């Protein structure tokens, strides 16, 4: 309710400011797009061309590039910053990122050790590992 009311009051007098601060500019979108294309092409090139000849290094590089591209999307497409909504969107994001980090690393870590220490490897899985 209150949002609609303010909109009616505020819309006419801060038109240009709204455009500037609201949804970025053509330049920001194009910058984000170009960066995203670069950050997409490099990992596909690394994996498809087997460029680094080392799957561990390739995995790490691809993960880092994916992370960087997520930040690019947040900044240029989702207009994330530390100030909008009095910093609450940023706080919510940091909280979520923390939860996600615990959830992902914890699950993979615990289940990896469960597999290693408790599950007798089935015959076909041993065969597959040898292949």
């Amino acid at each position, binding site marked *: 309710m209150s949002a609609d009311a303010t*909109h009616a009051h505020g819309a006419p007098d801060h038109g240009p400011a709204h455009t500037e601060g609201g*949804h970025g500019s053509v330049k920001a979108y194009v910058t984000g797009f170009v960066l995203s294309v670069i950050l997409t092409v490099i990992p596909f090139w690394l994996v498809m061309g087997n460029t680094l000849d080392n799957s561990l290094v390739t995995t790490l590089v691809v993960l880092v590039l994916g992370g960087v591209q997520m930040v690019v999307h*947040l900044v240029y497409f*989702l207009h994330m910053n530390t100030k909008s909504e009095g910093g609450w*969107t940023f706080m919510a994001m940091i909280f979520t990122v923390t939860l996600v980090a615990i959830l992902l690393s914890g699950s993979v870590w615990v289940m990896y050790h469960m597999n290693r220490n408790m599950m007798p490897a089935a015959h076909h899985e041993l065969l597959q590992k040898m292949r």
Partner: protein
Amino acid sequence: MMHTDTAPPGTAAPVFFATDEEGHHSEGSTMLGFWLYLMSDCLIFATLFATYGVLGRNYAAGPSQKDLFDLTGIAVNTAMLLFSSITYGFAMLEMDKDNQRRTQLWLAVTGLFGVAFVALEIREFVHLFHEGAPPWRSAFLSSFYTLVSTHGLHVSFGILWLVTLMIQVQKYGLVAANKRRLMCLSMFWHFLDLIWIGVFTVVYLIGVLE
């Protein structure tokens, strides 16, 4: 918004207008609420990523990522979603200029890229079924289909939402309510592109390694 909560009742109104002058969106609370929804959606995807991370190498003697995935097709899919992100951005810029016809045009282009993405994904799934890799073949495939199709369903509902809003805009014009809705969909759409970065990085690219 926070100021209004902490200020005594008498001073609420002036403080309210002061926050408006800081150049924030006047649709503030809706945007924050929708952002919180996206964060909870992010947790759903995180659990599905964790499931895939745990089960992704359990093939039950079935096909592995390397046997199944066609990275060229995935690259095309990625391009579709990335194009749709920037065209939605252009739609928002035209919306700010109150140019209804161009907003609708860019929204339509965005929708077409979205449809292309979903169509390519369905084609990939059909192809996998023919290759003898349905979800029930192995734990890897179960977790793969759950993660990727959850994202695909989000995009499909995004397209449905987009078409609905295009009809709304056609009928009622770029009124404040429609602008607010378009801004929510904008966040939803860009968020799905962000999740897709995780999908193609973890599932497809890292999947075919080793």
